[in-house]
């Protein structure tokens, strides 16, 4: 789960990482007035709270020198639609704007902690050329990026933080400020089970280091031990995705018109790929899980049908531990309870698949059984196009 910048900064504040003077978070432009009364001294920075990088270029970060300017920016920013290079062609609505006091920047650094899958541990990434995006930096100045594995038990020890500070060319009088911030960030990453903690830029001011931004991604698998994260609303998930999650079904809505119900994440992705290869477009990713019983099948149908784009449903179940005849009965029972208005293609393979197909074929229910995944994909593509 990704956190908004101000949520991330609230966590950083708890562990005494220096931040710009906090003004407030507003969801109505007029709310800026009380902030300007409290935070009298400008300049003020207004930042759109959306879950995407590249906000600056998209007009989501503004520096106001006067209260008049600040009010004008607030009016323009709250409610605006933003598209950055990270939103993949979609736009995000700005519901909230963070207001902070501007800081005097001497130099911008980059600092992040992430999971390095290759070495199987956290890794720290730092650069003396902060401010720009790490992907751009990696391309233009790979030599300016320092990568250090972080021990998941010890974290970043002070001596290692000091060595890093020298490597980054930080002036001697600011070494202890850097060490304090860097060790605190790594500790936070580990204690809070994060998958990513990025501070870009981490700026050097005359008073020491200040985290100007905070991008945090939490590890969903660890939510059971972080109630503060677990209780937070995942703003990136659609209502259908949240509903699915409640029932342990993993569902991701997509743009196409063929609804998919599959057991297993890999096979679900493979099914989407096969539909695409057959010339169609999947409406969703859906993994009903290993124990695909009648109740779950019914639940999955309901979730898929919430999407009005769905023109056909493809069910692809590989019966391993679950038996296909049971799945077939489950599908029929679910269909009896609900009126399905779109064509249904079912492919059952594995344990008792012949029996399962026979149950479906003999039921008299209007559905198509498929002999292979390819057959199923082709049939659903044709059905979605209204050809069969």
């Amino acid at each position, binding site marked *: 789960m990704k956190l908004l910048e101000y949520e991330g900064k609230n966590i950083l504040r708890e562990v005494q990482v220096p931040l710009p003077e906090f003004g407030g978070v507003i969801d109505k432009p007029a709310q800026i007035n009380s902030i300007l009364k409290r935070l009298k001294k400008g300049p003020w920075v207004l930042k759109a709270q959306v879950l995407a990088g590249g906000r600056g270029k998209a007009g989501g970060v503004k520096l106001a020198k006067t209260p008049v300017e600040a009010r004008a920016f607030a009016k323009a920013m709250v409610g605006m639609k933003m598209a950055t290079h*990270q939103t*993949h062609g979609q736009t995000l609505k700005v519901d909230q704007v963070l207001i902070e006091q501007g800081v005097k920047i001497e130099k911008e650094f980059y600092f992040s902690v992430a*999971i390095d*899958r*290759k070495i*199987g*541990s*956290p890794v720290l990434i730092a650069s003396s050329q902060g401010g720009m995006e790490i*992907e751009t930096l990696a391309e233009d100045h790979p030599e300016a990026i320092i990568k250090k594995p972080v*021990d*998941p*038990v010890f974290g970043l020890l002070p001596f290692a933080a000091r060595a890093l500070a020298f490597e980054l060319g930080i002036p001697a009088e600011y070494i202890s400020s850097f060490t304090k911030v860097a060790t605190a960030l790594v500790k936070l990453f*580990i204690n809070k*089970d994060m*998958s990513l903690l990025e501070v870009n830029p981490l700026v050097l001011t005359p008073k020491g280091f200040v985290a100007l931004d905070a991008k945090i991604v939490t*590890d*969903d*698998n*660890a939510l*059971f*031990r972080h109630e503060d994260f677990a209780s937070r609303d995942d703003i990136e998930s659609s209502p259908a995705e949240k509903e699915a999650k409640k029932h342990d079904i*993993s569902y*991701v809505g*997509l743009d196409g018109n063929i609804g998919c119900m*599959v*057991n*297993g*994440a*890999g*096979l*679900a*992705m*493979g*099914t*989407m*790929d*096969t*539909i*695409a*290869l057959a010339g169609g477009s*999947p409406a969703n*990713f859906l*993994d009903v899980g*290993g124990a695909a019983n009648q109740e779950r099948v019914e639940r999955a149908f309901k979730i898929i049908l919430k999407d009005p784009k769905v023109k056909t449903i493809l069910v692809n179940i*590989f*019966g*391993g*531990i679950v038996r296909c005849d049971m799945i077939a009965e489950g599908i029929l029972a679910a269909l009896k309870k609900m009126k399905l208005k779109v064509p249904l293609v079912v492919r059952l*393979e*594995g*344990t008792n698949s012949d029996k399962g197909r026979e149950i479906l074929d003999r039921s008299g229910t209007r559905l198509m059984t498929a002999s*292979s*995944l*390819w057959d199923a*994909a082709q049939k659903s593509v044709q059905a979605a196009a209204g050809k069969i």
Partner: protein
Amino acid sequence: MSILLNKDSRIIVQGFTGSAGSFHAQKCLEYGSQIVGGVTPGRGGTTHLDRPVFNTVEEAVKKTGANVSLIFVPAPAAADSVMEAGKAGISLIICITEGIPVLDMAKAKQFLKIYAPQARLIGPNCPGVITPEESKAGIMPGYIHKKGPIGIISRSGTLTYEAVHQLTQKGLGQSTVVGIGGDPIPGSNFVDILDLFERDPKTEAIVMIGEIGGSAEEDAAAFYKAHMKKPLFIFIAGKSAPPGRRMGHAGAIVEGSSGTHASKIEALKNAGAIVIENLSEIGATVAKNFKPVAV
């Protein structure tokens, strides 16, 4: 021969008396695996499925001579179970549990490196390992497998069954099938298992099933090019998945430009692997391009 697991493997089950542990231990026994006991703290001294239950892995190893542990312990305690198995001297740890916090796995890996260098970890979040007609330590449906020359390695469960099923239908049996799991930090990666298959005289060709996210497939491509001669067939799932969205597996997410379907396919193609684009054609493609030597 085979890799990792054979008829002599002596397996214990951690989380033995829980519902998943009981169910799958029973299925493994039916397949003919040597399940020699299990561990459930507090239930030591009792028996379950006609096998002894122990309080600790250390005790189980001492009394049964187990060398493999199959873990079904729930996610919050699973990494601890992995470390316990390693410390007790188990050489093959197979962790089925899904949903383990990533940092728990990072710590467990580190622990194994220091305190249990003998241990190889497979998983977590995986279907396990099977050497057909010898031993099954996992949750895969045993009957779809058949003994033969193809080694299979995969990041996904049901996708593996799909591949195995297609191969078996074409008369192509498997030497060993290894599910390495869909998590960001797996105990073993593609390269580790490819290396074992390359050295295994009974494995003549390998089918590798990857998915988007991470760089394990790209690493496998480099390893294949430099160190392997056996034919390698690959399928990579997730071509149609949009970037930035997590598709069930914690590992299957494309971040930035790394780990895309295209980059993996290109790397593997350039390394000389045979790329299978259509999931339905895994069996047919292998049958067409590979003729087993030893029948």
